[in-house]
């Protein structure tokens, strides 16, 4: 029997491949479009050379004081370099910075471990460590409990504070929001209404109002004489705020788990918590992962709002640096640009991860 061999594919015709047809198709398809293309090119041609010149070629890179910025036509990166320690670590004592780095490395290590470790080890080691991490970090950063030099929370600051606050809030918000979401789905009317009120309250109120509540109202709620640390109050507020949003994300996840899963777990004779934790939760987390990350990006960006209540996070440090009497040369563009780039890299990479997970989960064949 003769084997069937298809003829080799014909190459595409010459007028659809190559650079010229691509240009014609994508940049100059119609006269109007060609005009727009030329206008955009002209705009960038006039904008980019001076911008690059200001950013890089004429910029001042070396030096330690403002006087080193001799070229007024270029950016004064000396400002950013001189303040970089404060931007990242706030006024935390220099010789103790290893503690912050340890905490961040531990966070990264645990995140990697929870992806790479075997399932059993992950559940037994990575998850409890993850939940404990905020508390361990506080002990290490504070230092007084374990015999290290005591560093008051007034000295914590900079970009690492943004990262740690956001991470600590989402870690505690995970179990809390899961409970709220469960409460909202519950059959028990009182538990359900309490959950709904909690979730809608923390979602409906501006986060700034929550911060103010934390700083002017929470002290009234505690017994007289109790002095609750400012950063701790912020952490509580951020956690509750995050829980409200995450509870809604989880609710979406719960709804996406097919009913058959609940019924199958019931018919196996699993109890409520076994069913929820062993069957439903893993699926919910998988489905909600992109939205959890998106919510986290929002929380992370919102940590800059802490400037308003006087926490020395990165943006607040920048404002302080800009009003420092030795640096009054109008470096606001450089400062904001630097902060923007740092935040942008973090948020953009997280949204990339989120959309890649989404693509992996998306099994529809729509297009």
């Amino acid at each position: 029997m003769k084997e069937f061999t298809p003829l080799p594919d014909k190459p595409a015709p010459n007028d659809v491949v190559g650079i010229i047809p691509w240009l014609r198709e994508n940049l100059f398809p119609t006269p109007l479009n060609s005009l727009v293309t030329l206008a955009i090119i002209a705009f960038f041609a006039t904008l980019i050379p001076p911008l690059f010149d200001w950013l890089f070629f004429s910029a001042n890179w070396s030096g330690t004081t403002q006087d080193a910025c001799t070229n007024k036509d270029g950016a004064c990166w000396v400002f950013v370099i001189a303040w970089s320690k404060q931007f990242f670590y706030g006024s935390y004592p220099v010789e103790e910075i290893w503690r912050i780095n340890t905490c961040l490395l531990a966070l990264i290590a645990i995140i990697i471990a929870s992806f790479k470790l075997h399932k059993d080890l992950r559940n037994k080691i990575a998850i409890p460590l993850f939940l404990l991490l905020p508390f361990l970090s506080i002990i290490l950063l504070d230092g007084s409990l374990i015999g290290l030099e005591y560093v008051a929370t007034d000295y914590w600051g900079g970009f690492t504070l943004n990262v740690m606050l956001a991470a600590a809030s989402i870690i505690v918000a995970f179990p809390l929001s899961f409970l709220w979401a469960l409460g909202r789905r519950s059959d028990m009317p009182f538990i359900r209404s309490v959950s709904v009120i909690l979730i809608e309250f923390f979602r409906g109120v501006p986060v700034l109002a929550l911060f103010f509540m934390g700083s002017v109202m929470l002290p009234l709620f505690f017994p007289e004489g109790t002095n609750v640390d400012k950063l701790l109050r912020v952490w509580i507020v951020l956690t509750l705020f995050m829980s409200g949003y995450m509870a809604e994300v989880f609710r979406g996840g719960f709804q996406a788990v097919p009913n058959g899963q609940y019924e199958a777990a019931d018919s196996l004779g699993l109890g409520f918590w076994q069913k929820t934790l062993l069957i439903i939760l893993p699926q919910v987390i998988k489905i909600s992962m992109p939205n959890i990350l998106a919510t986290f990006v929002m929380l992370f960006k919102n940590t800059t709002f802490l400037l308003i209540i006087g926490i020395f996070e990165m943006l607040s440090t920048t404002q302080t640096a800009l009003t420092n009497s030795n640096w009054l040369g109008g470096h606001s563009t450089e400062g904001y640009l630097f902060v923007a780039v740092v935040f942008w890299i973090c948020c953009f990479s997280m949204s990339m991860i989120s959309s890649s997970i989404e693509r992996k989960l998306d099994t529809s064949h729509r297009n």
Partner: protein
Amino acid sequence: MSEKPQVKSSPSFFNNPRNRSLIYQFLLLAGLVYFFYGIITNTLANMESRGIKSGYDFLFTTAGFDILMSLIPYDATYSYGRTFVVGLLNTILVSTIGIVLATIVGFLMGVAHFSKNWLIRKLAVVYIETFRNIPLLLQIFFWYFAVLATLPSARQSLSIGEAIFLNVRGLYLPGLIAESGAGFVYTAIGLAFMAIIFLTRWARKRQNDTGQQFPVFLTSLGILFGLPLIALLLSGLPFTWDFPELKGFNFRGGITVIPELMALALALTVYTGAFIAEAVRAGVQAVPHGQTEAARSLGLKESRIMKLIIVPQAMRVIVPLLNSEYQSLVKNSTLATAIGYPDLFTVFVGTTLNQTGQAIEIVFMTMAVYFVINMTISFVMNRFNASVELAERN
């Protein structure tokens, strides 16, 4: 046959789901009562020791501070209640400007994502990904401290046709001053809107009945501009322009937009616009490609496909997203306090709270206001959503 073993027909007390749920709910209730009892007693004790008098009497006492910008007459002799209204109006103003502009920018950029032109497509992507991922507060600061603060002084203002001026003190626009007879023109505008609504209904009914189309858009445009224009001419132009003029060190006359408002509105527009663009993109992408192909095979023109097939289906995805974006814009407008734009938050939670110390009342009132604003947005958008929702056959 052996006898059936005796099985207790009813489960033990604690295994009965009804009893259980009652116990759990009772425990939660008890916990909440204990929690609130603790909070309330502590708060009362704290307030007493700090000498704070609770109640809303402070709303009627004289405020004694000035506000940078007010839409209604206000000076330091008015009451705290008045400051609340001034702040509320300023919040509504900046939110409205933000919502309208962000919607325009968002839809333009969202549609630009599907342009035939590669450069425009990439520009849209760059815009979305840049501004979505930079904290809003940073953007506000950027516009306020790095852009608007470097504008020229009043004497060297940038100007367009000697009517619009832009300088470090703000944006100056010519204003319209109404004279007697203006009411006639306002009535004409109202009539024009009513006529358009009536015309749209009539045209739709006629198309449903007879299949004949009526050029609604052009006729509406004609009515919208024609009717007020006729009224304007008949009543002898009862409006005069009030141009801003440089007097001394500053401009007088016209409408002044303070830089705080400009920076806040710009940042809210650009930031929320990026999210709306993303929503529009998601909405259009959610329409299956088969819909476009089917429409093409019916012989519809590309512009008609967009209007009749793609947009109505995309709106179902876009509208709920718009709802939440609008709400977060209103909530984000509280960042005004960082640059001193006198919105509700700055005026009330900021200055008034500092002066009176009525923390609980003020925070409660402010939260209630944002709740009400967001409920209103939600209500309007849900009504709108119902009109674009898929009408399935029953």
